[in-house]
C-alpha cells in the first residue's frame, strides 16, 4: 500500500482534487454538512499526498511519473527513438516545495472557508472550482511537459476567474474577474505561441528534452520573452500588475489567499523556464537584470501604491505585488551570476534561497493577512479602512494574528519574513548595494503602511457602531492559527527550514543537468 502511494503520488495529487471537484455537485445534494466533510476529506488526502511526495523527493531525489505508461517510471518508450512522447510529471525539490506550499495554504484556507463562506449560495460550484484550482496549482508545479503546463495554467485561470466573480457584489467582482480573465487569456495564448515555437524547433514538448537540445537562437529568444513576460504578468509584477489589486480585493478572502499561491505557481513557471529550459545557454546577465528590474519596480511601485489605499484588501494586494518583487529580486540576482561558479557560491545560491524562502513565507503570512481581513469583513461587513476602528477590543485573536502577519511582512524579527529578507539583503548587497538599499527602504515603507492599517482597524476606542461585534468563529481562527503557527515556526527555526527545504529547491532549480538526467536518463 505504501509502495502504491509512493509510486503514484504525483498522479494522485491531481486525481484526488479532480475526483473531489466533479463529485461535489452530487454530494452537495445530500446536505451542506456532508459536502463540507467531503471537501475537507479530499483536501486532507491531497495535503497528505503532497507531504508524502515531498518527503520522498527530499530524501530520494527527483521523482518522475509517466501518464498512460504500463510502468510509471518508464519515461522513454522503447520504440520511440529516445523521445519522451507521453505526458511526464517531473517532481524535483522545487516542485515539491511548491506543492507543499499549495497544499498547506489550501488546507488552512479550506478550514477557514467552510466557516466563512457558509452564508453564500451555490457552494457546490464554489468548492468544485476551489478543488479545480488546487488541481491546477498542483499540476502546474509538477508537470514536466510544456503543453501540459499551459493546460493546467488555463484550468487555474478559468477556475480563479469564476471564483473571483463568485460574490457578484453589484458587478464589481465581475468587473475584477473580467479584467483578470482578459489579461490571463491573452497571456496564456502568448505562452502557447512560445510553446509552439519550441515544438517547431525541437520537435518536443518535454521540458527536459527541449532543455537538452536548447540552442538559444533568435526564435528561442523571442519565445523566452513571450513566456517570461506572460508569466511575470500572471504573478503580478509591475508594470503588468493592474489586474492584481482588482482581483485580490474583490475575490472572497479565502480565494484571495489561494490567488497568492496561484500567482506563485506562475512565478514557479517563470523560474522553471529560465533556469531549467535555458540555464546557461541564455545571456544570464541580461535576463537576470530584466528580472531584477521587474522585481525592483514591483517592490517600489507596489508599496508606494499601497500606502494611500483605503480598502484594506486592495492595500494588501499592493503589498502582495511588492513582496513578489523580493522574490524576483532574489532569484534574479541568482540568475544574473548563473554560470559563474565562484560568485554563485559566494552569494548567488544564497540570493536564490532567499527568494525561494520568501515564496513560502509570503504564501503563509499573506494568506494569514487576507484571512484576517476576511474575518473582519465577516463581522463588520466593510473593507473600508475609514469606517473601521477600535476592533481590538472585541476581536482580540484576530488582532494577534494580524500583528503576526503584519510584523512578518514588514520583516521584523523573529518572524519568517525577517529570515528570508535578511538573506536577500545580504546577498543582494554583495551583488549591488543600491538594490539592497532599495529593498530595505521598501521594507520600512511596508512597516509604515501596516502601522497605518493596524491603527485604523484595531486601535482607538470602541466605536458605537461596532458595539456588538464578536470574535471571529472558531474554524476561521483555526485556519488562521495554522498559518500563524507556521509563520512563527519558520521565523524561530529558519536554518533547519533552509537546509531541509529551501537549499535543495534552489540547487535543484539551478541544476539543469540533474533535471534532464532524471527524465532522459544518463547525463
Amino acid at each position, binding site marked *: 500500500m505504501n509502495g502504491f502511494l509512493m509510486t503514484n503520488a504525483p498522479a494522485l495529487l491531481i486525481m484526488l482534487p479532480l475526483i473531489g471537484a466533479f463529485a461535489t455537485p452530487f454530494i452537495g445534494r445530500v446536505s451542506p454538512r456532508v459536502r463540507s466533510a467531503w471537501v475537507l476529506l479530499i483536501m486532507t488526502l491531497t495535503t497528505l499526498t503532497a507531504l508524502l511526495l515531498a518527503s520522498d523527493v527530499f530524501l530520494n531525489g527527483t521523482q518522475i511519473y509517466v501518464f498512460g505508461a504500463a510502468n510509471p517510471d518508464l519515461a522513454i518508450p522503447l520504440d520511440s527513438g529516445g523521445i519522451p512522447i507521453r505526458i511526464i510529471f517531473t517532481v524535483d525539490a522545487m516542485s515539491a516545495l511548491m506543492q507543499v506550499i499549495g497544499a498547506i495554504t489550501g488546507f488552512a484556507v479550506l478550514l477557514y472557508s467552510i466557516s466563512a463562506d457558509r452564508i453564500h449560495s451555490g457552494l457546490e460550484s464554489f468548492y468544485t472550482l476551489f478543488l479545480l484550482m488546487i488541481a491546477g496549482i498542483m499540476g502546474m508545479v509538477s508537470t514536466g511537459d510544456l503543453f501540459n503546463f499551459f493546460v493546467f495554467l488555463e484550468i487555474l485561470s478559468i477556475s480563479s476567474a469564476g471564483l473571483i466573480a463568485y460574490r457578484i457584489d453589484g458587478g464589481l467582482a465581475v468587473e475584477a474577474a*473580467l479584467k483578470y480573465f*482578459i*489579461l490571463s487569456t*491573452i497571456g496564456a495564448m*502568448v505562452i502557447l505561441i512560445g510553446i509552439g515555437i519550441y515544438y517547431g524547433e525541437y520537435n518536443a514538448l518535454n521540458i527536459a528534452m527541449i532543455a537538452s537540445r536548447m540552442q538559444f537562437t*533568435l526564435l528561442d*529568444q*523571442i519565445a*523566452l*520573452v*513571450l513566456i517570461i*513576460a*506572460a508569466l511575470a*504578468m500572471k504573478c503580478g509584477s509591475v*508594470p*503588468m500588475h*493592474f*489586474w492584481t489589486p*482588482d482581483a485580490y480585493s474583490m475575490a472572497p478572502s479565502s480565494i484571495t489567499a489561494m490567488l497568492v499561491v496561484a500567482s506563485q505557481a506562475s512565478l514557479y513557471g517563470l523560474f522553471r523556464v529560465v533556469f531549467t529550459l535555458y540555464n546557461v545557454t541564455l*545571456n544570464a546577465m*541580461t*535576463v537576470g537584470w*530584466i528580472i531584477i528590474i521587474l522585481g525592483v519596480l514591483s517592490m517600489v*511601485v507596489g508599496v*508606494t*501604491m499601497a500606502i*494611500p489605499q*483605503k480598502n484594506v484588501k486592495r492595500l494588501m494586494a499592493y503589498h502582495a505585488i511588492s513582496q513578489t518583487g523580493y522574490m524576483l529580486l532574489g532569484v534574479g540576482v541568482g540568475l544574473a551570476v548563473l554560470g559563474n561558479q565562484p560568485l554563485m557560491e559566494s*552569494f548567488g545560491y*544564497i540570493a536564490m534561497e*532567499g527568494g525561494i524562502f520568501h515564496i513560502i513565507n509570503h504564501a503563509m503570512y499573506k494568506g494569514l493577512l487576507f484571512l484576517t481581513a476576511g474575518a473582519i469583513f465577516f463581522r463588520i461587513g466593510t473593507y473600508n*479602512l*475609514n469606517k473601521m*476602528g477600535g476592533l481590538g477590543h472585541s476581536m482580540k485573536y484576530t488582532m494577534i494574528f494580524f500583528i503576526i502577519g503584519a510584523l512578518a511582512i514588514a520583516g521584523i*524579527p*523573529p518572524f519568517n519574513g525577517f*529570515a528570508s529578507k*535578511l*538573506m536577500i*539583503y*545580504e*546577498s543582494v*548587497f*554583495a551583488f549591488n548595494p543600491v538594490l539592497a538599499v532599495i529593498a530595505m527602504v521598501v521594507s520600512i515603507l511596508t512597516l*509604515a503602511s501596516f502601522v*497605518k*492599517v493596524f*491603527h*485604523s482597524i484595531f*486601535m*482607538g*476606542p470602541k*466605536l*458605537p457602531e461596532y458595539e456588538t461585534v464578536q470574535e471571529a468563529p472558531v474554524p476561521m481562527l483555526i485556519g488562521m492559527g495554522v498559518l500563524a503557527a507556521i509563520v512563527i515556526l519558520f521565523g*524561530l*527555526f*529558519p*536554518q*533547519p527550514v533552509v537546509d*531541509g527545504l529551501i537549499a535543495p529547491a534552489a540547487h535543484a532549480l539551478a541544476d539543469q543537468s540533474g533535471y534532464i538526467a532524471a527524465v532522459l536518463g544518463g547525463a
Partner: protein
Amino acid sequence: MMDLFASLSTGTGYWNPLAWLLATVVAAVIVYLIWRRGESGYKKGTIQTTPFISGNPEPDKGMVHIRASNLYWGYLDALKGYYDFIVPAHTGIVNDYVLWYLGVTAALIIVVVVFV
C-alpha cells in the same frame, strides 16, 4: 537530525533568532519590573480610569479615532508629484492594461534580442 537551533547563515553573516528571543525576554522582564513600580491601587469604573482632558468633556468616541485617510498626510503631500503620476496610471480600463502588457513584451523582446 539537523540542528534545530542553528543560526541562519546568510553568506556574509549569521543570525540566531533564539538569541534575539532571549534579548526580548530580558527586555520584557525589565519592562515588567518598571511596570510593577506603578500605582497598583486604582479601581475600575471610578473617576480614576476616565480620560482627563484638561477638564473639558470627553468627545464622542467616533471623533477620537483618527481615520485611515488622515494618516500619512505629510508623506503623501511630500511625494505629490510621484503620486499625481502613478495613481492616474491605474486607469481601470482594460484596454490600457492589455496595452501595458503588450508594450512590456515588445520592449523585452527588443532588449533581449539586442543584448543577446
